[in-house]
């Protein structure tokens, strides 16, 4: 198959190779010092897709009508227009990055940043790949304002959530739209656990794109920017442009680039632990060998037997702390990445081919993440004004990962529960009878020798519980166009076809302990198997006509008309033998035929279709004032009802923006560039698939607290139940209205620049599955409700204090983002919608609070807020209802970075921070419970009077507590488990997000070699973290809800990674 694909690519490359010149314009581009500037892009202004690149001496030649205006662009320089007949030797002026260059806007139309009336930033390939992040989305973190990125694990395979300007949808998707070469792609999150309490997170599809293939990423933050994407554009868009052969130096040449990197990963933040008390349960048996409690006696260093007694033999160790026992479990993660790309072309045609492999061994034994990707991009311009482009990417992904949280195979939870004196590394040998689950006794029965009666050997879990994901994906597009004069008409058809399979193997075993003391603590699992396949297709077709005309000397007009078709279909089939309520007949045989009870099978088909027509008009007055208006009308199948009028499916939304480069009128030596801009947009969105369908009947299946309890047929009797979600028959499209104003200022010829934006977004008529009281007979109704606002400030500053002609360049930059979110209204009596969490700790959208409000059970408090102590037990009493505890929204996000360049040497450092906001840490809850947390050292574990507490006297009055002591053992092992509020922590952090040092060998050293370029470097990402004082537990970026709206939820989520490595890149 792969060979066949390669053959196809080669054939295509040959087909695209022919070319012939006509109307040649020749010229030369110079840098600010008057030296020939290689690699500058020269394109036809009215047809921005046509262009060439200057050769090593800065020369270019381009086939263009004699009347064409050319545009010269190069990163780091201000763009220049070459009017027809004007001199073609041009000296460019250096510019700061933020202000110049181009932005890929909606529909993948490349535009100059100068003439855009809304906030948009472009990140170059170089900036993106500085830290060698395997995730292109995570690599955006800290590099632009207005973006809230959460990278759950910070390593291969983890989810990355990208939210632009706050969450706009209460129940829907809030991730930014990801667009690759004009085609919006599938960015679904593959979560395979039964719930977020036992999540298996295989990552999100947006992370599949190979960062090395990316030429640039434009971040379109607001609805105005992405209005032409309609529905999905309300969340803003991440526009990814992949590399083409055109930007290779010299025409007609082929450049081959090979890069390889080797990355090591370890865990960024471990919980702080106590090292004074060891295994045991103070209240009961001080040195209970079965315990997961570290509530035993203080360490005394004496020799003690530990674990089970097997045939009279027992292991002995000193009773002392093992400070590094959690750390010792993890391997150093290793990632080897190889990237080979070939690119080439001439002024007519170009192609780019890349092969990428990524092989990762995770920090948890047996985890891996391997990705193989092939890309072909080609374009050609035919003699008869037709042109075509093709981008195709095939990738194959195979990964294995451990389950998080309280899953039966949850590795991290079992590590956390290891008493402080247990040497975890000694549990590694699974054949050793003291660790094994499968050694046989004289009667042939399985006996386990593991020390823990209530926990499992994490090495065993990592070995035996096997969760895998396999993805085959093809995405790409074909673009055929016709361009002549000011006309450009093209049709782009593209798609994203994903075949995704998940396999979850839960081993079947029963083992009784060797040691009679452990009687009753059997290790048992009924075994299970899940296999699920989802095939999805996103198909797009855009037909776009673009016309540019210079109306007068000062005024030019651009009109765009387009039609868009979007088709989505997914089909999921799965079968499951659940270990909780079913089981395997034969151990180690993972097949759906091997269930003790009926296999739960499920098939779901979803389909939707959308037709849109849109248009935009742009006026450009003297390259100084720009006015743009867009309009779009969509017809969405998700609003369709049989026999109803088509009108119902239709919705219209407009946007407009205006910008003014005022320094054209007020020339100034200090403020050398100044632009103000304002925009308004209204974006509509259809409903979720089948959201307006009334409930029907489905096979009855009844859930319990911990698993599905009943699956029909019941004792061979079939049973159906009426669905619990009502639908409104009059669903309207959702709408987000947005206003933004901003300014871009450049000082001292852009040696310093500021980009500032204020925005206000209001999302109304949201289509939401609104919870209703079950007493109505239903649990939810899908209707238009809600009103959410997000307003905020974005600030980006860039200063280049030093830029000397000998090549020394030092640059510092920073961003600041503040978003204030508020849920203004839901509907009727509903003041809260639960987004996630546990039964006693909800993450919600609550009226009057920011989106993502935490509600949990707190202590019962008197009117002054002091905890009320129960006089009987000395423990704080609990409130009956949940209270507000904060939100996962950070108060602000900021970053600070610096780049230092001298000749071939480049050093860059990037810090970022989120301040404010909270998260729920079940890691804390668990560590408090088992007495591992550092904070259980408080008061040497002696009873104490709780600070600022009260009790209720006989008359019912609240009296300051001066007598009832709280026993920390009882507090941690009972009340703390129910008072979820205690485990909501400040989520603030500062991270050293990236640091990189690279050296490009001087050309003269390579003259005699085969290499055109050779760069070596060292890099790191997610290197250090500083957290809030209260958070002694985890990186607040970890999350059990993946990239979903359930954020700030550490339900013993996989810890995040620190990555660092070396990289070599050569070109031929």
């Amino acid at each position, binding site marked *: 198959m792969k060979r066949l694909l390669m053959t196809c690519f080669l054939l295509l490359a040959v087909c695209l190779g022919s070319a012939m010149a006509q109307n040649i314009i020749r010229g030369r581009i110079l840098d600010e010092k008057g030296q020939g500037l290689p690699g500058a892009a020269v394109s036809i202004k009215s047809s921005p897709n046509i262009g060439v690149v200057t050769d090593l001496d800065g020369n270019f030649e381009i086939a263009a009508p004699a009347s064409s205006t050319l545009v010269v662009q190069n990163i780091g320089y201000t763009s220049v227009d070459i009017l027809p007949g004007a001199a073609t030797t041009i000296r460019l002026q250096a510019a700061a990055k933020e202000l110049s260059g181009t932005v890929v806007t909606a529909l993948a139309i490349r535009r100059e940043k100068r003439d855009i009336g809304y906030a948009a930033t472009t990140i170059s390939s170089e900036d993106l790949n500085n830290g060698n992040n395997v995730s292109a989305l995570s690599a955006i973190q800290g590099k632009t304002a207005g973006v809230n990125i959460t990278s759950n694990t910070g390593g291969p395979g983890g989810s990355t959530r990208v939210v632009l300007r706050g969450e706009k949808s209460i129940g829907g998707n809030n991730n930014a739209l990801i667009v690759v070469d004009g085609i919006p792609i599938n960015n679904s999150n593959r979560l395979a656990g039964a719930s977020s309490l036992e999540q298996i997170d295989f990552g999100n599809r947006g992370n599949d794109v190979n960062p090395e293939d990316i030429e640039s990423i434009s971040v379109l933050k607001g609805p105005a920017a992405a209005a032409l994407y309609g529905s999905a554009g309300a969340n803003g868009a991440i526009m990814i442009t992949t590399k083409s052969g055109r930007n290779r130096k010299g025409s007609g040449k082929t450049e081959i680039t090979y890069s390889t990197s080797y990355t090591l990963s370890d865990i960024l933040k471990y919980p702080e632990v106590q090292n004074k008390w060891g295994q045991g349960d103070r*209240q009961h048996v001080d040195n209970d060998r079965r315990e997961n409690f570290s509530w035993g006696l203080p360490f005394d260093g004496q020799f003690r037997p530990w674990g089970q007694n097997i045939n009279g033999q027992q292991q002995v160790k000193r009773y002392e702390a093992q400070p590094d026992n959690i750390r010792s479990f993890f391997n150093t993660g290793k990632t080897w990445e190889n990237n080979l790309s070939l690119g080439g072309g001439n002024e007519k045609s170009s192609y780019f081919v890349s092969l990428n492999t990524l092989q990762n061994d995770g920090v948890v034994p047996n985890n891996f993440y391997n990705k193989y990707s092939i890309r072909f991009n080609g374009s050609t311009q035919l003699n008869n*004004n037709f042109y075509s482009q093709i981008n195709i990417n095939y990738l194959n992904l195979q990964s294995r990962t451990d389950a998080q949280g309280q899953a*039966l195979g949850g590795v991290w939870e079992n590590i956390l529960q290891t008493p402080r004196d247990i040497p975890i590394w000694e549990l590694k040998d699974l054949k050793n009878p003291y660790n094994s689950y499968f050694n046989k006794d004289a009667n042939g029965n399985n006996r386990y020798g593991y020390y823990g009666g209530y926990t499992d050997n994490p090495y065993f879990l990592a070995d035996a519980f096997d969760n895998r994901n396999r993805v085959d994906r093809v995405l790409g597009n074909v673009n055929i166009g016709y361009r*002549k004069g000011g006309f450009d*008409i093209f*049709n782009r058809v593209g798609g994203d076809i994903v075949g995704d399979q998940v396999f979850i193997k839960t081993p079947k075993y029963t083992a009784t302990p060797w040691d*009679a*003391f452990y*009687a*009753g603590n*059997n290790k*048992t699992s009924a075994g299970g198997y899940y296999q699920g396949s989802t095939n999805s297709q996103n198909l797009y077709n855009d*037909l776009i006509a673009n016309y540019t005309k210079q109306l007068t000397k000062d005024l030019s007009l651009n009109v765009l008309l387009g039609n868009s078709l979007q088709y989505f279909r997914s089909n999921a089939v799965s079968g499951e033998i659940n270990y*909780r*309520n079913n089981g395997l007949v034969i151990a180690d045989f993972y097949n759906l035929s091997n269930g003790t*009870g009926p296999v*739960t099978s499920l098939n*779901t088909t979803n389909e*939707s279709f959308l037709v849109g027509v849109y248009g935009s008009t742009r006026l450009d007055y003297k390259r100084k004032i720009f006015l743009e208006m867009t309009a779009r009308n969509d017809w969405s*199948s998700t609003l*369709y009802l049989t026999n109803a009028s*088509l009108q119902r*499916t239709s919705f219209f939304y407009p946007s407009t923006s205006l910008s003014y480069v005022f320094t054209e009128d007020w020339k100034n030596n200090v403020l050398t560039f100044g632009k103000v801009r304002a925009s308004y947009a209204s974006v509509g969105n259809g409903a979720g698939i089948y959201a307006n369908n009334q409930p*029907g*009947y489905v096979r*009855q299946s*009844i*859930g*319990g*607290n*911990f698993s599905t*309890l009943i*699956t*029909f047929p*019941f*004792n061979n*009797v079939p049973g*159906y139940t*009426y669905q*619990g979600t009502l639908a409104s028959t009059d669903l309207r499209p959702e709408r987000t209205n947005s206003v933004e104003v901003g300014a871009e200022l450049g000082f001292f010829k852009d040696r310093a620049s500021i980009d500032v934006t204020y925005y206000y977004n209001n999302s109304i008529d949201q289509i939401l599955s609104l919870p209703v*009281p*079950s*007493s*109505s*007979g*239903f*649990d939810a*109704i899908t209707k238009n409700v809600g009103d959410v606002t997000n307003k905020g400030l974005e600030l980006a500053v860039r200063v280049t204090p030093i830029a000397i002609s000998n090549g020394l360049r030092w640059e510092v930059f920073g961003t600041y983002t503040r978003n204030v979110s508020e849920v203004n209204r839901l509907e*009727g*009596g509903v003041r*809260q919608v639960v987004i996630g969490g546990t*039964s006693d700790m909800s993450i919600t959208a609550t009226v009057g609070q920011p989106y993502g409000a935490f509600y949990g059970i707190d202590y019962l408090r008197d009117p002054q807020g002091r905890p009320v102590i129960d006089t009987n*037990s000395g423990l704080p*009493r*609990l409130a*009956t*209802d949940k209270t507000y505890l904060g939100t996962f929204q950070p108060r602000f996000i900021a970053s600070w970075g610096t780049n230092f360049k001298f000749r071939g040497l480049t050093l860059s450092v990037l810090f970022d921070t989120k301040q404010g906001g909270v998260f729920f840490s079940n890691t804390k809850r668990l560590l408090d419970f088992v007495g591992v947390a550092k904070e259980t050292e408080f008061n040497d574990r002696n009873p104490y009077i709780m600070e600022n507490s009260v009790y209720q006297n006989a008359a019912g009055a609240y009296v300051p507590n001066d007598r009832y002591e709280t026993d920390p053992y009882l507090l941690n092992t*009972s009340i703390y*488990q*129910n008072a979820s509020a205690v485990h909501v922590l400040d989520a603030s952090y500062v991270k050293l997000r990236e640091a990189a040092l690279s050296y490009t060998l001087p050309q003269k050293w390579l003259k005699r070699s085969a290499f055109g370029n050779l760069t070596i470097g060292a890099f790191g990402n997610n290197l250090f973290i500083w957290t809030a004082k209260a958070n002694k537990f985890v990186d607040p970026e970890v999350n059990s809800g993946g990239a979903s709206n359930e954020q700030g939820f550490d339900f013993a989520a996989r810890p995040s990674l620190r990555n660092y490595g070396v990289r070599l890149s050569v070109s031929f």
Partner: protein
Amino acid sequence: MNTVFKSVAFTGMLAALTLSSGCRKQLDVNTNPNIATEVTPDLLLPSAEVNLGVAMGVDIHTTGSFWAEYWTQSPTASQYKDLEQYQPTGNDFDREWAQFYSGTLMDLKKMIQSAESTARPQYIAIGKLLMAYSFQVITDGWGDIPYTQALKGELTDGQILNPQYDPQSLVYDSLIAMTDQALALINPADTRKPATDDVIFGGNMTSWRHFGNTLKLKLYMRLSEVAPDKARTGLTATLAGGGFLTATENAMVTFVATAGNRNPLSGEITALNYTQNQVASATAIDSLNRNNDPRVAFFYDIAVDAICNPAGYIGLRQGDYNQSPSLLLSAPGAITGANANLNCNSAAVVASRRAPVRFLMGYESLFLQAEAMVRTGASGADSMFRAAIRANFTHVGSTAAAANGYIASSYWGRYPTGGSAADQIRHIVTQKWFAMTGIQGFEAWTEFRRTGYPSFLVPSVNSFLGNNFPKRFPYPNTELTRNSNFPGQKPLTDRVYWDIN
């Protein structure tokens, strides 16, 4: 001009390519293929009956069995400490509330609608009886509840999404009326009655008639303290009509060992990887032992030591979970569905999977009749009392002969024939409490609230309510946050309407 022409032609060509079929057809892909739009009543009946079993059989069963002091939290685990502290939170009951209303009751309502349109009155009768039964459990647990405006979320019902709460007295009156309506529809000769789809009585309409009459006894009986005259009148009339559940006629859902068809409490315990949270409370097991009650061996599993040697029927003081995990304690017996003793008695674990969830039992019918006789001055309460004990003995797995021995020798087995009515009622209700040990915890706790019997229950060691007992369930969090007509949370010490004890 040529350019324009070419452009237009090309555009037209592309447009033709992409828009070749009509728009309406393209957009007509919005009918959910993953659900069925219509079903017959026989597909809804088993679904509702089993769902009622799950709603009754997990947390309501466990909470009832804790507060009736059959069970207590094991020191080796921690799942139900909040019940022992008498401070469960509203969200502890979210699931059950939904399983009653949007689960069981809504399916019953749809079944009745479907039966009305297809002329199947026997389904309507069963639907109304199960509705009345369910609503009584809900109102006994929570007091005032949504009733007249409940289950009306659909447009055809006026789309009431925030139902108002009705006073419990009104709910009781309505449930009696609903039971009467159902009884009027029952016709055992009707051939369009359910068969195997009725997993409670297999379509035996005579049994359903008995169920309806017994339910009326149970409804009137609950009003004995708050409205004694009304109760007496109702009980007299109902007794006169006769036709109650017989000793072996049990309204319950019997679960099977097949995966996905098991007793829901055993299913929860399996999902918790066989964690034994529920162990014997000393209140119940010591009383059984003091009376030499042979049923102790069925209500509980014998406690065993580390190598599975039996150590007797041992309980823990109610709520005393901070004891050593090494204490030897009895687990609930297999008939309760709560046995997790995989190590020493895996047969009991397997049998737990088959344990029924009991709604209205034959022995319960006999106890209700006995009490009704005492309260209405009718004769025969003593023999009815003894019949009830025998019915319970045989139901739990013991024998009538053993029952007779117990009746002859134990304090609580001997009916105080010459005693006062109050004394007789004390005996009947206390004996009913023994009979329901770990198998009808909610009903026993509810009868304790009505009558104050047994008088020997003790507040939990870890009570946060001092010497008070919990008198109700807290309203679920879902009502608090979703229903604009929710009247407000009530403290656990607030009594429900019929509880004046």
